[in-house]
C-alpha cells in the first residue's frame, strides 16, 4: 500500500509528539545543542545587559512559564479554560502575602503552586458536563469571581488599591537579578516537566481525550481525570509564574490580572503555536518583545501590534513554530523541488 512520507499540514493545533519518524531525531539533536547554548547565554545575561533589558527578559521568562501551562490546557487538552489569569493572580497574591507574613519567598513558590493546582481542579470541575465555549465561559466566570474576591478581601490584599510586594534578594546581588536567576531555573525546569508530560503517554492520551471525547473511555481512559489533571498542571505553572511576576512588579492590584492579561496570554499560546512544545517560548517572546519594540511607534504601536498579529496568523496558521514545516510544504518551496504542488486539496482530509 502506498502512503505518505512528509507530515501533514492540518491547521488546527497539531500537537507533535516524536512519532518515531527518523528525520525528527536528527533535528532533535540539533535543537538540543541550540537549547543548551541558549540557556547558557541566558544565565550570563545579568552580567551583560542593563536592568531594563534584564527586566524584559525576566518578564518574558515569567510568561513562558505561564504559557507552558496554558498551552498544555488549551493546545493539548483542547479545553479553553479562561481562569488562567486569575490563577496567575492567586500565585502573585499568595506569594506576596505569604512573604509579608514571613515565609521565605522560595518556599512560597511550591505552596502557591499546589494551592493553585487544587483551585484549578475546582475551576475545571464544570468540565464534567461542559466543553468548548460553555467551559470557556464557565471558567472565565470563576476566574472573574476570584479577581473580585481579591478586590473585596481588602484587609489582606489591599483591595483595589493594591499591595506592595516585599522583594526577595540573594545577598550581594542587586536589582532584579536575584529573581531573574530563579525565574530562569524555574522556566527551564517547567519546560522539561511539560516536555516529559507531553511527549509521553500523558500527552498522547490528552490528545485522544481532545479528539475522541467520551469515546476515549473505551480505551480505558478516564476522560474526566485527564481533563482535570490538565487543569491542575496549568494552574500549577500559572501560580509559579504569578509568584515571580509579583516579585518583578513589586506592586500588585487586582485590575492587573483581568482581561488585559488574559488576552495576551491567549495570544502567546496561539501565536507560538497551540499544541506545540516550543510554541509557548516563541509566543511569550513575541508578545513581550514586540510591545517593547513598538514602543517608539507612538500612536501607531497598538495598531501595529494587531496587524503583526494578524499577519503572523495569516502566514503561519499553525503558529510561529510551524515555520519550518510550513516552509517545507509550501507552494513556493515546493515549486523549487521536483514534483512540488500546491497543497490545496489538503482541506478535504476526507470529506465527512
Amino acid at each position, binding site marked *: 500500500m502506498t502512503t505518505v512520507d512528509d507530515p501533514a499540514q*492540518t*491547521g*488546527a*493545533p497539531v500537537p507533535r509528539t516524536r512519532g518515531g519518524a527518523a528525520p525528527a531525531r536528527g533535528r532533535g539533536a540539533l535543537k538540543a545543542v541550540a537549547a543548551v547554548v541558549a540557556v547558557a547565554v541566558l544565565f550570563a545575561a545579568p552580567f551583560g545587559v542593563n536592568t531594563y533589558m534584564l527586566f524584559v527578559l525576566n518578564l518574558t521568562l515569567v510568561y513562558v512559564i505561564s504559557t507552558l501551562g496554558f498551552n498544555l490546557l488549551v493546545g493539548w487538552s483542547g479545553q479553553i479554560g479562561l481562569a488562567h489569569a486569575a490563577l496567575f493572580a492567586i500565585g502573585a497574591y499568595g506569594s506576596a502575602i505569604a512573604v509579608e507574613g514571613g515565609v521565605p519567598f522560595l518556599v512560597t513558590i511550591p505552596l502557591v503552586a499546589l494551592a493553585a493546582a487544587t483551585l484549578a481542579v475546582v475551576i475545571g470541575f*464544570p468540565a464534567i*458536563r*461542559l466543553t468548548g*465555549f*460553555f467551559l470557556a*465561559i*464557565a471558567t*472565565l*466566570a*470563576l476566574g*472573574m*469571581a476570584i*479577581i*473580585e474576591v481579591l*478586590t473585596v478581601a481588602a484587609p489582606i490584599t489591599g483591595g*483595589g488599591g493594591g499591595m506592595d510586594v516585599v522583594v526577595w534578594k540573594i545577598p550581594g546581588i542587586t536589582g532584579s537579578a536575584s529573581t531573574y536567576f530563579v525565574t530562569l531555573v524555574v522556566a527551564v525546569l517547567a519546560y522539561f516537566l511539560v516536555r516529559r508530560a507531553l511527549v509521553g503517554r500523558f500527552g498522547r492520551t490528552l490528545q485522544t481525550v481532545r479528539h475522541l*471525547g*467520551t*469515546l476515549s473511555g473505551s480505551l480505558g481512559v478516564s476522560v474526566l481525570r485527564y481533563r482535570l489533571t490538565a487543569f491542575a498542571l496549568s494552574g500549577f505553572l500559572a501560580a509559579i509564574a504569578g509568584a515571580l511576576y509579583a516579585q518583578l512588579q513589586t506592586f500588585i492590584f487586582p485590575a492587573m490580572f483581568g*482581561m488585559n492579561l488574559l*488576552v495576551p496570554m*491567549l*495570544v502567546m499560546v*496561539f*501565536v507560538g503555536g*497551540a499544541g506545540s512544545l516550543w510554541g509557548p517560548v516563541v509566543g511569550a517572546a513575541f508578545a513581550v518583545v514586540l510591545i517593547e519594540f513598538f514602543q517608539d511607534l507612538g*500612536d*501607531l*504601536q*497598538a*495598531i501595529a*501590534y*494587531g*496587524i503583526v*498579529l*494578524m499577519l503572523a*496568523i*495569516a502566514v503561519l*496558521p*499553525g503558529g510561529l513554530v510551524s515555520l519550518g514545516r510550513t516552509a517545507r510544504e509550501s507552494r513556493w518551496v515546493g515549486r523549487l523541488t521536483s514534483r512540488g504542488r500546491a497543497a490545496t486539496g*489538503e*482541506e*478535504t*482530509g476526507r*470529506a*465527512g
Partner: protein
Amino acid sequence: MVQTALSGLEAGSWFALLGLAIVVVMKAADVPNFAMAEIGLVATYVGTVVNAGAANFWVAVVVTLLGGAVLAVAIDLLLMRRLAKHGHFPLLLMTIGLSLALNALIGLIWGHDPRSFTAPWSGSYFTVAGFEISWAQVVTIAVGAAGAIGITWFFRTSTGAQMRAVAENRATARLVGVNAGRLSAIAWGVGGLIAAMAVMLQAQSTLVSTHSAASLIIYGFVAATMGGFVSLIGTFAGGLALGVIQQTVGAYVSGTAQFAVALLAVVIVLLVRPDGFTRGVRLRDV
C-alpha cells in the same frame, strides 16, 4: 425597582443583539468572533460623524448599519476565507488581532475620548405612574426585540440548515452543492449589521469609547453561550436575563460585583442546562 428592571432590559438588549451577531457568524463560519464589538464600534463612530455633520439622524443610522455590514463582509472576504481550512484556532486568534487593530484604529482616527450618538429622543424622559422612563430605553428594548425576531425569521429558511452544514464540515457542504462562500458572506454581513445596531443603541443612551468594547464583547459571548451558540431566541433571552441580573446585582449588592456575579449566574445555568436555553440536540457519538 422599575428603574433597575428597565436599565437591565436596556443593557440586556445590547448584550442580546451582540450575542445574536456572534451566533449568526458562528452558525455559518464557525468562528468565535472577538472583533464583533469593534466592528459595531467602528460603524457607530462613522455614524456619529455623519450625525454630527448635521446630516439627517436617520441617514446616520442607515450609514451606521450598512457600515457594520460592509466592514464585516470585507473582513470575511479578505481575512477569514483563506484561513477557514486551518480550523478554529487561527480564526479565533485572527479575530482577536482584528479587535486589537480596529480598536487602535478608532483611537488613531477619532481619539480616545468617549462619545455618544445623539438621537432625537436621547436624554428625554416621560413619567408613568411616578416612574421616569427614558425614551432611549424604550427604543432600545423595542428595536432589540424587533431585531431578534427579524433574524430568527431570516434563519428559519433553509439558509439556516445550509449554514450549520457549512459550519460542521465546509468541504462536504460544498460537495453537496452548498455555496459556502455566499453563505458566510451573508452571515458576516448580517452579523456586522446587528453588531452595529447594538453599539449604536448603546451610544444613544450612554457613552461608547475604545474601551467600552471590551466588556460588551464578553457579555455578548455570555449571551451567545446561553443560547448554546445555535439558538437565536435562546441567545436573546439569555442576553436580557444577563442584563437584568447584572443591574439587580449592581443595585442591591455592589456595582463592582456585577460582572462576576452575572457570569456566575451563567455558570449555574450552564451546569443545570449544559446547552444553555436550547432543546439540547444531544449528538449520538457512538
